[in-house]
C-alpha cells in the first residue's frame, strides 16, 4: 500500500480537489483506494456525499486499540473507492496527538489497512503541526499543490527547511495548481520550476471553474467533465504520479 498525502501549509491551493480526483483516478485504474479526510472542514467527505461524522471522533482515531478504522469506512459511489469521512472533532487532533505523544500510533492505524488497499490518500488540513508531522512520518509521498505565486514559493521553502531539520524521510512531489497563464507572475514562476526546493511534476492544473463545480455537483471532476482542460490535467497528473510510484509498470 502506498500512502500519499495531499498537503500544503497554505489553504485553498487545491489539496482536496487533488485528493478527490487522484483517488477517483486511482480507483478507475483498478486500484483499491481509500481517501481519508483528515481535514475537520470535511470538504472531501462533502464531495463524496457522505456524512461528516465518525463515531468517537478524533479521540478514537488515535485512541483505544479496539477501535478499528475499517468500521468507519464508507463506500463512495465509485467502484473501488472508499472514504474514511471527516469529523468536526478533528480540529482537536493536534491536542490529542500531543497527549498520545506518539505519531507511530497514527502510523499503525494507517498501516493496518495495508491488506485492503493499494493506495491511501490523506487529505490534510492546512497547517504545520503535530498532525502534519505524523503525516510526514507515515506517508510515502507528500503531494504538494502549489499556486505559482511568491508567497507559495516561500511556503515551500519553509516546508523544505522543516523536513530537513526534523529529518523526515518522505518523498515530496509538487505540482502547480490553479495556474492562470494570463498572469505574468504565474508564467514566470512556472518557467523557473527548478528554483523550487522539490521536484515539480510536469502537469499543471489550470485555474478552472470546473474544479469549483466539484463541490456544487458533489462529485469528482472526471465524472461530469471528461474533456475539459482541468479534467485532462488531472488525468495527466495521475499518470505521472502512478508512473513514478510503479516505475512505469502498467498495473
Amino acid at each position, binding site marked *: 500500500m502506498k500512502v500519499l498525502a495531499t498537503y500544503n501549509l497554505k489553504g485553498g491551493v487545491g489539496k482536496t480537489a487533488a485528493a478527490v480526483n487522484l483517488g477517483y483516478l486511482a480507483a478507475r*485504474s*483498478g*486500484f*483499491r483506494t481509500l481517501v481519508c479526510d483528515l481535514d475537520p472542514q470535511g470538504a472531501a467527505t462533502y464531495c*463524496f*456525499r*457522505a*456524512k461528516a461524522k465518525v463515531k468517537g471522533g478524533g479521540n478514537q482515531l488515535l485512541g483505544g486499540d479496539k477501535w478499528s478504522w475499517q468500521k*468507519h*469506512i*464508507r*463506500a463512495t*459511489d465509485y*467502484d*473501488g473507492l*472508499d472514504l474514511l469521512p471527516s469529523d468536526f472533532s478533528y480540529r482537536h487532533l493536534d491536542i490529542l496527538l500531543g497527549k498520545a505523544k506518539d505519531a507511530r500510533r497514527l502510523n499503525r492505524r494507517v498501516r493496518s489497512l495495508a*491488506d*485492503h*488497499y*493499494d493506495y491511501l490518500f490523506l487529505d490534510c488540513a492546512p497547517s504545520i503541526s503535530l498532525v502534519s508531522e505524523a503525516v510526514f512520518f507515515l506517508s510515502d509521498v507528500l503531494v504538494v499543490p502549489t499556486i505559482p505565486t511568491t508567497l507559495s514559493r516561500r511556503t515551500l521553502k519553509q516546508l523544505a527547511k522543516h523536513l530537513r531539520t526534523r529529518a523526515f524521510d518522505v518523498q515530496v512531489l509538487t505540482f502547480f495548481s490553479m495556474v492562470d497563464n494570463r498572469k505574468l507572475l504565474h508564467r514566470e514562476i512556472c518557467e523557473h520550476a527548478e528554483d523550487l526546493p522539490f521536484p515539480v511534476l510536469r502537469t499543471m492544473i489550470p485555474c478552472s471553474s470546473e474544479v469549483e463545480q466539484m463541490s456544487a455537483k*458533489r462529485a469528482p471532476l472526471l465524472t461530469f467533465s471528461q474533456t475539459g482542460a482541468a479534467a485532462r490535467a488531472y488525468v495527466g497528473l495521475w499518470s505521472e504520479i502512478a508512473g513514478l510510484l*510503479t516505475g512505469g*509498470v*502498467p*498495473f
Partner: protein
Amino acid sequence: MGRLEQGGRRALGDVGNSQDSACPVASFVLETIMSAQDIKRQLTGKFRIQRLGRVVSELTYYDTFDWRLYRNAAGLVSAPSEGSYLLSLVDLEGTTRYRMTLNSVPQFARDLPLCQAREALEKVTELRRFLPIARIERHSERIAVLDRREKIVTRLSLDRDAVLGDSTAGRLKHLRLKVEPLTGYRKEYAAIVRFLEHEAGLVRCCGSEVERVLVTAGCCPLDYTGKLIVRLEPGIRTDTASKQILVQLLNAVEANERGLRDDLDPEFLHDFRVAVRRTRSYLGQVKGVFADDLERHFRGEFAWLGKLTGPTRDLDVHLLSIAGYEAEFPKTDFELMVRHLRRRRLVSRRRLLRGLDTRRYLKLKAHWNALIGTDVDERGPKAGLPISEIAEDRIARAYSRVYKRALGLRKETPSETIHRLRIDCKRLRYLLEFFRSLCDVQQANSVIRSLKGLQDRLGLYNDLSVQQVAVREMAEELFARSGTEASVFLSMGRLIERLEARQKLVKSQLEKSISGFTGEKTAEALLELVR
C-alpha cells in the same frame, strides 16, 4: 494468507477487500422480463431509486485445468475495458475481492503485477496456466438506491447472461437481480434484501454465481483432478476392479494429451506421465489379471510411452530448478545455460510429439481401450480372485521391499541403490492409491503422508543427479561448438558443485525421513491396512 491450501474450499475467495465481507452479493431469480419491470416499479415506490443505465460486458471466466481456483472458492474473470482488461478475482458468490486493470490477460499468476492477489494466486495455481473456460455476454441494467443526501447506499443489477462461443450463442440463459452490499451501508443493504424477499416475494438463487455461469456455459466444474479416486468394493473380482482403475488412468492420459501437445503448462506432461507410469506400475505389480502375453505386450508399450516423455519432463524440472540459481551466476552465462536447456527441450518435445503422432501410440490407446473398456471376464489366473485379497498381498510385499532396502541404507550407499529405493517407494505409493478405498482411509492417508516425505527427498536426490548429468552434457555440447566463453564453463562447474553439495545435504537428511517411515507408527498403520 497462510490458509491458502490447495484443495480447501476456502481461502482464495477471502483475498482482498470485499465490499463488505459479512454481506455477500444477494442474487434473486427472475422468471421473465415482465417480472423485472414489476420489481423496478415496486422498488421505486418504496426506495429512492436512480437508474444508472445499461451496460453490456463480455466476461471470460478462467481457471486452471484442474480447477484450482474453483476448489479454492474463487473465480477469475476478465472484461475488456477501454483498450485494456479489467481482471477481477471473485468469490463463488460473484463478489469482487480484488480488481486490477491490465494491458493483457495474464497467462500465469506470475504474469500479474506484484500484489496480494498475485501472491495468493501463485500459491494456489503454482505452474498451472489460466485457461478460458467460459465466455458470456452480460446485459446489466444498473440501479442505485440513494439515501437522503443522494448518496448511493446499495447497488442493484438486473443481469441477463448469454453464452458466447457455443451452438446456443446469443441465447439469454439467466435473468436475475443482484444486490451488492456497499462498505459501511449494511443496514440499507439488509433493508433492500428483506424487501425483495418478504414483500416482493422473490426467491434467492441456489448455488453459487460462478458455478451457475460455468454450468450455463456447459462446463462441468471439478471434472478433472490429478488424484486417482476409485471406489472399489472389497469382494469384487480383480479383473473388474483393475479395469475400473485402469480406465480412470487412461482417461487421465487422454485428458492431458491436448494440453501436452499445445505445451500449455508443464503439469499436463507431468500428469500424463504419472498416469502412464501408474498404468505400467499396475500391470507390473498386479500380475495375472489379463492373459500373460497381453500383460507383457502392454507393459512394454507403456514403458515405451513413459520413456518417450522422460527427457522433456527432466528438462522441465531442470529449467525450473535452475531458476533458483539465477542470482549466483553472471547474467550472460546464466542466460546462455537457460537458452541451451530450452533448445534441448524443444528438440526433445519435437521427438515426443512425433512419438504421439505414430500409429504405435494410436494403436496402443485403441487396443488398450478395447481391452479395459469391456465387462468380459479376463483369462488371467488371478482375474477371478477378490480384489481385497490381491491388494493386501501386494501392499504387504511392496512395504516389506521398501522397509528392507531403506534400513540397508548407509552413508556410502551408491546412488543406484537410492534410485531403486525411490522406485520401490513409488510402487508402494501407487498401490496405496489404487486400493485406498479398500482400506481405512485415515490409516491409508497417514501411511501415504509418511511415505510422501521420504519420496520427496528421494525424488529431489534423483533430480539433482539428473541435473548434474544434464549440465555435464551441456558443457560437452558447448565445448564441441567453438566460440563459447571460458566463463560459461566455469559457471557450469560451479553449478555442478552446488548441485553436488545440495545432493549431499539431501542424502544426509534421508536418514530422518527413513526413520519416520520405518518407525513403529507407520508399520502399525500399514499392518492395520493389510490385515
